[in-house]
């Protein structure tokens, strides 16, 4: 189903996509179709202009070398810190300032309104700060008590 193609980074660090016998497509980017609900299912590699070059049903079906390049590229593109602990929320009024620990270190951000906290399922939530950065909480139940108490006000 997947037509033969190769991926490599050129000297500028851009991703180059080549179908066997076709023109190389410079500046391709892999995009997950279901980044939150099923990160490994549905991957689209798109040209710089947004045209789909190839669709991959399951990332795991990729040969190891391609998989490595794709994973590398995806981690570079996807910045979605995972929230691990909430130290402090400035006030109950909006906008509020949050001080949190994430898997990428400690940070502060401003949350415009409580509507920017979305529940993604029974145990999953996402926060979108004023800058549009998204913070993921993959499992509400595994958060510590203090953080949960703070979040409970909003969820």
């Amino acid at each position, binding site marked *: 189903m997947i037509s033969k193609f190769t991926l490599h980074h050129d000297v500028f660090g851009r991703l180059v996509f080549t179908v066997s016998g076709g023109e190389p497509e410079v500046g391709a980017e892999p995009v997950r*179709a279901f*980044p939150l609900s099923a990160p490994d299912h*549905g991957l*689209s590699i798109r040209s710089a202009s947004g045209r789909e070059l190839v669709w991959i049903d399951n990332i795991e079906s990729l040969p190891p070398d391609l998989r490595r390049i794709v994973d590398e590229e995806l981690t570079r593109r996807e910045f979605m810190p995972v929230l691990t602990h909430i130290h402090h929320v400035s006030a109950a009024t909006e906008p509020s300032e949050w001080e949190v620990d994430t898997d990428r270190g400690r940070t502060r951000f401003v949350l415009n309104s409580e509507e920017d906290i979305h529940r993604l399922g029974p145990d999953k939530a996402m926060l979108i700060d004023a800058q549009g950065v998204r913070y993921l909480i993959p499992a509400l139940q595994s958060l510590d008590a203090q953080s949960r108490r703070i979040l409970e006000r909003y969820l």
Partner: protein
Amino acid sequence: MNNQINAWDSLPVSWRAVVRERLVEGERLVSWFEPDLDAGLRYAAGLLLLTDRRLIAWNNAGTPSDWSLPLPDHELSADERGGAGAVELLSRDRRVGVWRYTAGRAAAAHRLVRLFDRVNVGHIKSDDAGTVCPSCGELITSDDGLCPNCSPASTVPPVSSLIRLLVFARPVHRFMALGFVLTLAATGTGLIAPYLTQPMLDKILIPFAEGKRNDVGPFWWYLSGMAGVTVLSWLLDWARTYTIAWVSERISRDLRMRTFAHLQKLSLEFFGGKRTGDLIARISNNTERLCNFLAINVSGFATDVLLIVLTASIMLSTDFSLAVVALLPFPIIFGLVHLVRARLRRGFAQAEIAWAAMTSVLADAIPGIRVVKAFAQESREVERFRHSNDRVMEVNDRMNLVWSFFGPLMVFFTECGLLVVWAFGAQRIFQKDITVGVLTMFLFYITKVYTRFESLILMIAATQRAAAAAQRLFEILDRVPSVPEPTRPLRPERWQGRIELEGVRFKYGSREVLHGLNLAIQPGKMIGLVGPSGAGKSTLINLICRFYDVAEGAIRIDGVDVRSFSVEDYRKHIGIVLQDPFLFYGTIAENIAYGRPEATRQEIVAAARAAHAHEFILRLPDGYDSLVGERGQSLSGGERQRISIARALLINPLILILDEATSSVDTETEREIQAALETLIQGRTTIAIAHRLSTLRRANRLVVLESGEIKEIGRHDELLQRDGVYARLHRAQVELVQGIGI
């Protein structure tokens, strides 16, 4: 059969005897109508009767004349001008009969005329179902065109709707009983403490003060008894309050659930006639109000009544004459309450209306803020709000006047009552009739009772409010869905998708909007519906979707009347793409899979791809997991449209309805949507409505509708050649485009 029953049942009683006498064995009554004017247009009673074999007329002279049916070459017609109308029976060369009536009888007259035509050509059908009410969707079978649901303003007394709430109490009746027992117990124990004061005073304290007694031991017994009773009363009261709150919470949950579930079943017509805010308020505020009423007022009321009854009986049994004096203010207070009640009820109703008016100013001005600002009308809106806000204040002022007078008056009566008890009680003590202890006990009881009075009056107001709330809820619950389910639905194995319309008529109230349409659409073909606004295009589509049912005629799918299928089953085969597609709050994937929640991710992606939505979806930060809808990502009209096309594709419908699918987007987006639609219509029977005639170039045939009738059918170029309605519409559009200079 229905007809006979209906027609006979609705026939005024005064006519029944004469009619019965006139009819022969086996003759069925089909319809009747009462002409109420004579030839000189003076009021006169008459009756025109249609049976399955005759047309019979009575005039005020009482001698009936009749015509046996069928009457070849005869025509019955009804027409109104001004306030009066006439039904005329015409033969080929002369007028055989004329019956005149006032405008109020018009609907009945037309109905009779219509049924006459059927009897006369020999096929009277039993399913003449009448018409559909435009505001609730209920079938109207009565001849006056009034909807039994809507027209006669509900005359049910409001309090009876509170009693209907008991239905919802059934699942929790055990706990209700428990709550009642607890109320009884808590109130009862609350009365024991004052009861103990009497022996405490008479047997211990007074003898002790007078030096007749010197041991105080029993005093502590009494006191600890009182303490114990107080604690018990507190615990019981706690249990009571919680139990009743628990019960009322469940009742109001069920009420909300039932109302919402019922709302989902009601026809589109119902929603058309209601403001969204009003419906939301009915489900949210009213149930909340009822819940509070049940939890706080009802249990409070029960406690009060119990308390008063118990206290009164204790007092009466202890000392009758003192009790009578102590209770003397009661009838006076009740009389006052009765006087005030009517004023209060009126006041509350006014307050409610004033409040609703203010809310609707808000509901207008806030969503319409863009228009307000664009026309710089902020100050006018403020003025409008000020006006309605002042009105709220005025109404409340008037209420407060009653209140502020009444509250202190109650206190005054209480104080007076106490003084009277003091005076009378002291007299009795001087006469050695009663002891000091008895008087003290009375004073305790009477204070307790008087304090309850005020809450009892509050209760009256609360009852009026709660009754109004309950009534508004039952207004929804009592509506009958206008699309009835067949008792034994057909479930065909395979559908082909051939649609046939035969003599389809539809009315909104008494206004007929479709006058007998006949049309057949072959499986897999696309037809375009064109015509000016108000031609009946959307009505036709609503009928095909079974948002409501035809008044006359039939719609058939593969030769089977759509009314033979279960509604849910049937709609699964229909895909609809609307002008302004609605996205629910949730992810894009969920929105695409709305009609088939069990669809796999592959299927969702495939549908999105076919709808030309895949690429823009992947451009969003979370791809198919992006949140859209009310609080989510904002998408453009074209993007939303393509998601809704994907939604329709995913359910793989047999019949596809495109209702102005491209009218709200620019030409560039229209092209993309067109491409998406091309995939969608493959192999499906498609009906498309469009104002832009260019949208319909894929259609196999165009059906031109004008004022509820099919005027032309044909291909684009054929219709242009015919130079009829379509050609006119087309010319107008071309000129418009040129005029704008696109």
